[in-house]
């Protein structure tokens, strides 16, 4: 068939095809650069035509992202990205929709749209650039800032307890949650590809560094010295091992997790939990999401990936049902339906 032939002729898209002509305007050293690079690296692997990809964002440093992608892009208003993206996706379900948010954008002003997108399981990919600060407005604390953080708006330290994105996602019925980090381009690329493949709302939290207003916020897990001991990269079907020589692992003890070392106290690989991202019951996912230094490593990778019908799939099925029940197939039918009369 001619059409297929034509498609095959199209050269594969490359990383360069996805970079727009706009000057990138983040601060030198900002973690957002490596996320951008991972994204332009990931998209060619998906084999989706450029014109079928849409980046939607709210407002913030992170939200500048769409300008730098040579795809369709919509830089909207603060916090409303998930709502706009929902409209884009439902209006044209064949589009690949990426929604970019900062932690303030997603979890402060946009918190409601965020949890409702997850509940509805709209088939979009939400990328949360979590720098634990308001970057664009020059350094106020955010809903993910740790208690006590001194910022422009909290000269005596933040009083609040932070949200943990993963917990909120699971509490809001999320079907997909993964966590990655701006210092690991390979993992980001991998995860972006997997997020695109998940049907339903894919929520990717990216620990991102804001060099200007909250430098080293993720230092406890990114520092070269700590990295191996405080990052646990999980993979579906694999044991949860970490450490320089993968000698440490997670074991279940009642309803708590504990770190054990292979070979010590008779611990063998059999004792180590094996990751099941597809388990619908989120109990263990929730436990994993919560781990953090210094007691535990932080868990990176796809923590939850459960398949449930996405909203737009259900919608298509609904249209069918609606058609079956209906006596009319066009507006003229509808206008003439029911109780009408003619004046002659």
């Amino acid at each position, binding site marked *: 068939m001619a059409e297929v032939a034509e498609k095959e002729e199209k050269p594969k898209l490359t990383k360069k095809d996805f970079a*727009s002509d*706009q000057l990138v305007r983040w601060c030198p050293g900002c973690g957002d650069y490596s996320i951008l690079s991972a994204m332009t690296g990931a998209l060619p692997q998906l084999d989706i*035509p*450029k*014109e*079928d*990809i*849409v980046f*939607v964002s709210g*407002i913030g440093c992170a939200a500048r992202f*769409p*300008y730098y*992608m*040579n*795809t*369709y*892009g*919509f*830089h*909207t*208003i603060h916090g*409303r990205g998930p*709502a*706009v*993206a*929902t*409209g*884009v*996706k*439902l*209006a*044209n379900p*064949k*589009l690949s929709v990426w929604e970019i948010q900062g932690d303030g954008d997603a979890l402060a002003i946009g918190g*409601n*749209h965020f949890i*409702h997108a997850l509940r509805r399981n709209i088939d979009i990919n939400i990328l949360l650039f979590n720098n634990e600060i308001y970057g664009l407005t020059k350094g106020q604390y955010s809903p993910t800032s740790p208690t006590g953080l001194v910022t422009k708006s909290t000269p005596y330290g933040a009083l609040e307890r932070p949200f943990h994105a993963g917990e909120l996602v699971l509490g809001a019925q999320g079907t997909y949650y993964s966590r990655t980090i701006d210092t690991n381009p390979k993992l980001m690329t991998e995860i972006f590809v997997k997020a695109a493949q998940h049907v339903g709302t894919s929520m990717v939290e990216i620990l991102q560094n804001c060099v200007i207003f909250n430098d080293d916020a993720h230092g406890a897990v990114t520092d070269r010295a700590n990295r191996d001991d405080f990052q646990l990269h999980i993979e579906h079907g694999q044991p949860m091992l970490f450490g320089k020589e993968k000698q440490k692992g997670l074991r279940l003890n009642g309803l708590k997790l504990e770190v054990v070392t292979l070979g010590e106290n008779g611990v063998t690989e059999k004792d180590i939990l094996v990751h099941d991202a597809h388990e619908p019951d989120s109990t263990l996912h929730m436990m994993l999401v919560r781990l953090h230094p210094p007691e535990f490593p932080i868990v990176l990778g796809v923590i939850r990936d459960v398949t449930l019908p996405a909203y737009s799939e259900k*919608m298509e099925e*609904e*249209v*069918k*049902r*609606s*058609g079956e029940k*209906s006596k*009319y*197939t*066009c*507006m*003229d039918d*509808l*206008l*003439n339906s*029911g*109780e*009408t*009369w*003619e*004046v*002659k």
Partner: protein
Amino acid sequence: MSETLANGKKTTVEKDKVVLRFAGDSGDGMQLTGSQFSFTSALFGNDLATFPDFPAEIRAPLGTVEGVSGFQVQIGQVDVYTPGDLADVLVAMNPAALKSNLRYARVGGTIILDMDAFDKRNIEKAGFSGNPVEDGALDAYNVVEAPISSLTKTALEGIQLDNKSIMRCKNMFALGMMYWLFDRPLSDTEKYLDSKFKKMPALAEANKKALHTGFHFAETIEALPSMYKVPPAKIEKGKYRHISGNIATAWGFMAAAEKMKRKIFYGSYPITPASDILHELSKHKHLGVITLQAEDEIAAVCSAIGASYAGQIGLTASSGPGIALKGEAIGLAIMAELPLIVVDVQRGGPSTGLPTKTEQADINLALYGRNSESPCIVLAASTPANCFEFAYMATKLAFEHMTPVMLLTDGYLANGSEPWKYPKMAEMPDITVPMATPNGEAYLPYLRNKETLARYFAVPGMAGFEHRIGGLEKQENTGNVSYDPRNHEDMVKVRAEKVERVANYIPEQKVMGEGKGKLLVVGWGGTYGSLHTSVSELWKAGKDIDHAHFNYINPLPKNTEQLFSGYEKIVVCELNMGQFANHLRGKFPKLQFESYTKIQGLPFAVTELKEKFIDLLK
């Protein structure tokens, strides 16, 4: 009125127009009764207009004033534009219904009461100090004391139904009485009952029996000595149906969508009195309607903007409080120059205000409820049926001019209904979206049509047109972010000019009357019926008075100033504190406008308007 001929036969009184009002407890089926009477009268050939008067409470305690539900209809052998000021015939199914509806009864008119409901407990519950039937409170009316409940019960004795179901038939008894009083056939309602209770023949039978019994009862009793005759009106030929404003709005959008071969995306959050648009649209998924009941009004409008961006028809609707929430997002659509239609079904305010009552006080919000210079096209429907036309026009203008449109309706239009000569789809005007087409050069998302200034549109999925837009100020043509001072001024002005130029694409303002003279009555939106009726009545009485009713609020029709200049006096009538009058003052600083207002959650009454106009004509 209440004469009997010497021979005992009853008289017949011919009338141009008659107003009926049914009132009873929420559960008494008054809305159904009213609609059936209206439908039968429409088939008979009357012109008519109806208005339901819902209680503010969902279901207040039985027998209380808060729980009373009403339905008013005016039928005529002449054109009818309002449900009427005062009822010639009021049916009150209990004391609470009488208590809260007496103010709508014309002095000298007929009041029909279900006497069985007038026991001491009910009378007290209604808040009467004594029995109104006995203490002279109704002396000014022709009261018909009908034992409706007990007669219904007796009539249905043989039928196998529980007591509750039997008592539910008493509204049909009352309807039967009305059919006799207005000389209407029972057959249309019988047909309706048969089809409604297809699966419950006992119910169908019971209702029909109650209907007949009521009819015969009316024929018999002395208290109803005369029948009214309201012959068919001269009505334009064509196919008709009843329609309420909210349904007409929904259908108008669906019609535009079919014409444009795009889908509707309706993002909405329920709110009185706009929710019925959502209810209606959500029934028609297979006609290309997507509805999303969003988490809030902001998500509703934002998802609609997303849908427009993706190439479908982004719609949202709400009432005042919800519209206030949408302002920021509407500003985004203005800046991004995306089509969007926002319906404001106005209700009494401020704040939560009087949610079930009508008002016209959101014109300022529609014009100005956004930060900075955010001009918007603003339209207003003026009758229940023409909500269809203006929903259609709103969609056409939003897409042909690439900018948001606010469509104002109100609680009165939304719930009111009238017979509608509905169009064929082939008659509806075309809608042409300025889509970008490949021309060998790079796509410029803010390149404009020279005439309309609308930008050329490209949507995701169109290969080769990839581009980025957003809420920051944009460089002309390229749409790149620009902080350039001159460019900003140019863009602010071009967005304003684009909206101004819509005046070239809308009809000139019409006037009912001479086009010049002593007094011009100006109105807009949902007050059409009462203004039109008042002015025509005075006009027939030889007064020098004209009426211009606006559907296009911003921009105003091009001939507006010239039209206004033909009059000695202009009075702007509206259900707010004078917002449209102020808008006109801003637009036409050289003209003088009087402002006549009412802010009671109620439509204008024809009588009060006529009084005012006569005063102004002095």
